[in-house]
């Protein structure tokens, strides 16, 4: 899918490719360091951009960033987000590849006092990816919500590490993962919440749900809570299984074929994630990516 075709008319668009960097925003870029000082919505697109230095996104206001990639060769990204005091970031990421490839992406997100992050990560990556996410709640009342939709097409292998470190009092984290694995897809997750000693009144929750669409698909989730403090709130869980056969029967009893019924159920499964996306174009891009994977394999 040509993502740029959908984004080209956006007024706040920054493009990084191997050939050129295009920036029609007021954001200054120096050595891959981007400073967001004003409240606004931005679109950032990476296409086979080779990093010499890690990317740093510094957030000082209320900002929405849509970060999309569409690589056609092995390209690894190391990206760090620095959320300054009382800043708010709504971040949507969609790491994707035009052709089957392998990559390592690492995101580190640091939150200062009262900073808030809403992170929606769509992982429909075509190929093999090791995706590491580390969120550090560095100061009091920092909050993070992570929603991740991972659709594994046939034969892909996604290895995902998510870790939230509560390093200050009264910090809050919530992770919701929705995972779908097609034939021969492997989705392996390690999800860790860590509350260090003395960081009382912190809240750390995670939920993992997975649907395997074939006997040959694999989803493994290792939800972990490492808690070194008594006065905290924490929960975790994982529910993984095959598609509900009674739901399939019900839909088929109304005339839908097996594959039509499965598509409808999966669309329903992804809806809670997709409905969080506040931008129609981005929603459309993601819906197309997901339905292409589902259609191809159903």
């Amino acid at each position, binding site marked *: 899918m040509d993502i740029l075709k959908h984004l080209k008319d956006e007024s706040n668009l920054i493009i990084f490719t191997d050939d050129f960097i295009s920036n029609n925003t007021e954001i200054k870029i120096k050595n891959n360091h981007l400073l967001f000082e004003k409240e606004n919505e931005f679109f950032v697109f990476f296409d086979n951009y080779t990093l010499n230095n890690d990317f740093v996104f510094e957030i000082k206001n209320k900002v929405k960033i849509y970060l999309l990639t569409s690589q056609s060769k092995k390209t690894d990204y190391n990206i760090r987000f620095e959320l300054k005091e009382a800043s708010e970031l709504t971040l949507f990421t969609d790491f994707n590849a035009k052709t089957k490839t392998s990559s390592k992406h690492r995101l580190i997100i640091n939150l200062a006092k009262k900073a808030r992050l809403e992170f929606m990560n769509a992982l429909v990556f075509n190929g093999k990816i090791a995706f590491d996410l580390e969120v550090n709640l560095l100061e009091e009342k920092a909050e993070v919500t992570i929603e991740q939709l991972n659709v594994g097409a046939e034969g892909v292998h996604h290895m995902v590490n998510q870790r939230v470190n509560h390093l200050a009092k009264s910090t809050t984290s919530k992770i919701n993962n929705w995972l779908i694995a097609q034939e021969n897809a492997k989705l392996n997750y390690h999800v860790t919440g860590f509350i260090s000693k003395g960081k009382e009144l912190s809240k750390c929750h995670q939920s993992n749900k997975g649907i395997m669409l074939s006997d040959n698909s694999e989803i493994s989730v290792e939800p972990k809570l490492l808690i070194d403090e008594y006065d905290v709130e924490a929960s975790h869980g994982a529910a993984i299984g095959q598609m509900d056969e009674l739901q399939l*029967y*019900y839909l088929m009893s109304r*005339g*839908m074929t097996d594959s039509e019924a499965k598509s409808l*159920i999966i*669309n*329903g*499964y992804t809806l809670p994630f997709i409905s969080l996306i506040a931008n129609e174009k981005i929603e459309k891009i993601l819906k197309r990516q997901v339905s292409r994977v589902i259609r191809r394999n159903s």
Partner: protein
Amino acid sequence: MKLQIKDLYVSIEGNMILKGLNLIVNGGETHAIMGPNGTGKSTLAQICMGHPSYKIESGDILLDDESIIEKTVDERSRMGIFLAMQNPIEVPGVTNFDFVKAAVQTRMKKAEHLRIGRFILKFEKASQDLKMGQGLAHRFLNQGFSGGEKKRNEILQMKMLNPKIAFLDEIDSGLDVDALKLVGENVTELKSPELGLVLITHYQRLLDYITPDFVHIMINGKIVMTGKDELINKIDQEGYDWVKKELGIEDEEVKPYSLGTCPSKH
């Protein structure tokens, strides 16, 4: 239009449930099937729909003289069989509107396109007729619906899909008196020479609103008696013991079985 069930034997998990059942339903006819719990009434409806947990041991099911027992669930539906389920399934994330639209589209020929304006008007009319309230279209399929709403939603689908043979499996359970009357009136409105109706019920009250042409009593997996209104009244007053006594039927022990999981394909 004719549904013919011929000497049907059906089992689940090694338990024989239907044991030589025969029934013919013609277009324009309404058949009521009554009987004690566990005699196979719902099994009859499910096997006609193609529920994959049940196994046909022998016999046949014909729709307009064509055997349907090798047809998949969706094929049977598109051929005109409809089952209003006793326990409609919840499907989170799928809106009622998208679901019904998809179901209607499956019945269209390749060159046809859904006229969305007309579809919306028909959906809204059906929704109003069944007093489903505003916002039904955008609610997730059966999720958070009351028992009565689920049953009315089944009838809404029936109205939208125009089946040839409709099984209504205990559509009266979970309905209060007003809702029962509403459902009864809506189903009665759908009666036509092109629709054969099979009502599965325990109670006379549904049949006060949908008048059957034939009343069948099922015991131990087959129809043991067929009659008309007089049979309903007698059952309502005296239960089924007199039938068993009259016909010399002894109660059979049926092992419990599960419908919890079922493969989607034969």
